[in-house]
């Protein structure tokens, strides 16, 4: 579905560009008008879903992950219909942040949400989402961060003196129609935003009856119930096109927390050779099938550091599309290493999908570290080579960075 839409948008945009470029009206390039047929107005409709944009490389429809820096690392955003797997850090401090950013981005963009967890009630998770930053409040945040390293405006730059008067920062976010917003972790999302959003929650202890009998099917009952729930929502709300005349197309953002932990009933973290070792991999396979046939994107956090069997981790990585690993420095010997003293952990982009494309969209920067400031979660390149990474450094943290 997304693929069909992309070729349409590609040619349409080229046509309109050329039409605009010609000065006189006598031109053979005409802009294609909007399709008259209402049934498959997929091409023009798909692009205009709020909070999405086509990728600049291959026209794939993308949604933002909530962190513009992470979007850039993933090649513009998360493709609709794919799974983003976050490998949790050891004490599970930073991966819930990425999870919350994803959900908050969904609320701000007006997408529907599906939150599944075995540990926390989804309503509680939604209450704790970060508040979005708008325009000038964001600028103030960055000013506070930068002011400790502030240069006076009339400082003499010896070599690059022509750039003295250029502003130091790029413009912050303007309105909620942008792709990718900034959030303030220290504040909670306003209640009215949650109430106006459409969300579905799946809390495992409520859905599973207390009969703990061992099922003979290969999927643990928790996973089976979750898959049925997701399928039900996708079908009922029409994300797979089954109820086409209902309303405007929208994206469903699915968030699954701590998948694979024992709280889901899966013993993949407890033993090395477990009986239900294929349960998790089957779940991911079926989930990916559900996602590919609907307008949805999914984020999963998984405690891979607890999984005993390394082969399972490799299979899980292959079954997901985008895999990002977080490694925090707490408790490890890297905490005292001066190389890492400004950061809280490393972020590893383990896999990026190759969708409708012949090449991977990997960024050039491979050594990445993250830092949790009081209000922001920033991702920066670890090695501060002076000139090599300058353009990327500026656009990563949007000016919240020491001018190097």
């Amino acid at each position, binding site marked *: 579905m997304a693929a069909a839409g992309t070729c349409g948008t590609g040619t349409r945009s080229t046509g309109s560009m050329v039409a605009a470029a010609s000065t006189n009206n006598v031109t053979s390039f005409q802009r294609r008008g909007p399709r008259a047929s209402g049934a498959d107005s997929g091409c023009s409709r798909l692009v205009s879903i709020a909070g999405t944009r086509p990728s600049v490389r291959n026209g794939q429809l993308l949604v933002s992950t909530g962190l513009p820096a992470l979007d850039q690392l993933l090649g513009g955003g998360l493709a609709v219909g794919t799974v983003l797997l976050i490998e949790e850090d050891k*004490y*599970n*401090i930073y991966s*819930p942040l990425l999870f919350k950013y994803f959900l908050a981005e969904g609320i701000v963009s007006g997408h529907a949400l599906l939150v599944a967890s*075995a*540990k926390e*009630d989804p309503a*509680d998770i939604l209450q704790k989402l970060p508040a979005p930053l708008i325009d000038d409040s964001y600028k103030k945040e960055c000013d506070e961060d930068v002011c400790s390293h502030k240069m006076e405006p009339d400082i003499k730059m*010896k*070599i690059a*003196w*022509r750039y*003295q*008067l250029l502003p130091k920062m790029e413009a912050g976010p303007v309105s909620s129609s942008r792709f990718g917003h900034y959030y303030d972790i220290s504040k909670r999302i306003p209640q009215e935003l949650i109430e106006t959003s459409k969300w579905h929650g799946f809390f495992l*202890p409520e859905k599973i009856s*207390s009969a*703990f009998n061992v099922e003979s099917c290969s999927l643990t009952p928790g996973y089976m119930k979750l898959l049925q729930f997701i399928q039900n929502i996708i079908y009922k709300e029409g994300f797979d096109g089954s109820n086409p005349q209902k309303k405007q197309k929208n994206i469903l953002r699915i968030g699954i927390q701590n998948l694979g*932990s*024992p*709280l*889901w*009933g*899966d*013993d993949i*973290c*407890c*033993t*090395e050779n477990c009986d239900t070792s294929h349960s998790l991999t089957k779940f991911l396979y079926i989930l990916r099938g559900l996602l590919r046939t609907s307008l949805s994107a999914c984020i999963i956090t998984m*405690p891979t*550091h*607890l999984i*005993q069997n390394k082969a399972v981790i490799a299979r899980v990585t292959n079954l997901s599309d985008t895999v990002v690993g977080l490694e925090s420095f*707490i*408790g490890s010997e890297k905490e*005292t*290493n*001066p*190389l890492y003293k400004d950061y809280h952990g490393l972020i590893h982009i383990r896999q990026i999908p190759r969708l409708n494309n012949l090449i991977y969209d990997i960024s050039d920067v491979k050594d990445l570290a993250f830092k949790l400031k009081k209000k922001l979660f920033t991702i920066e390149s670890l090695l501060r080579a002076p000139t090599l990474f300058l353009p990327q450094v500026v656009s990563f943290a949007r000016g919240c960075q020491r001018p190097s």
Partner: protein
Amino acid sequence: RAVSGRSPPPPAPTQGSPCGSASSKDSVEWEGRSLLKALVKKSALCGEQVHVLGCEVSEEEFREGFDSSINNRLVYHDLFRDPLSWSKPGKALPGGPLEALRALDKRTGSGPATIALDSLSWLLHHLPCPILCQTLHALSRQDSCPGDTLPGEQVRVLGLLHEELHGPGPLGALSSLAQTEVTLSGTMGQASAHILYRRPRQRPTLQTQWFSILPDFSLELQVEPLLESQPPSDLHTPSVDPTTHLTFNLHLSKKEREAKDSLTLPFQFSSEKQQALLRPGLGQATSHIFYEPDAYDDLDQEDPDDDLDV
């Protein structure tokens, strides 16, 4: 502090481990049951109701050492005497350990309570690990049930785990569930507890506390003993300095710095010219194109593209 009975309200499974220390010492048993009993005593003294699920020792042995006021607050659920329910129904806990845990879940409804599980190792051997984790999570979730949640009505869960009986899998799974993890070890006859306290959404703190338990199971916290006979364990390896062993020079001497500052750069204009270029005059456009035709340039004033029909 986490070791004392006034531990923070959220649940706190405790991990006690007999420790064969790496250094060449006699193996000393740092047993955790006395610590568990000390914590139970503290909770009982605070006026809470204490439920104990006893699996490894008999009831008499567990109650030994407590005085009567504490014993009255202690509700003992005995799984030791008849774990498989062979005796007549009604006498022992029917249904095995899982039912016993679920009964605990329903029983504590009034006032703050402490549940002590003696031990989690026994439960791990009799129940599959995911089910145990789910049941423990349900136990500890009692304080956040829907409706009014009074801060005093929270349930604290203490569990004793023998570290060496389990592989890294169940240990990791249970410790990810726990809010506070206390690992017992010690040196030279002094018991110490390494406490890992995870606060939600904040960095976990690691703390080491030396303590000893008196015969009446009250907890005494102590300062760290002086380690003389051992090489001091807190001597960190010298921190790594990344600027050593480089093939190029990162530091400038004073003379080099002066020479660098006094160097005139090729495109360095005088400051007036800089200002003039930076701030263009009023009537000027912001950019100029200065073109000097070469000898070979063809300066045809006619536009060669005029005859194209575009």
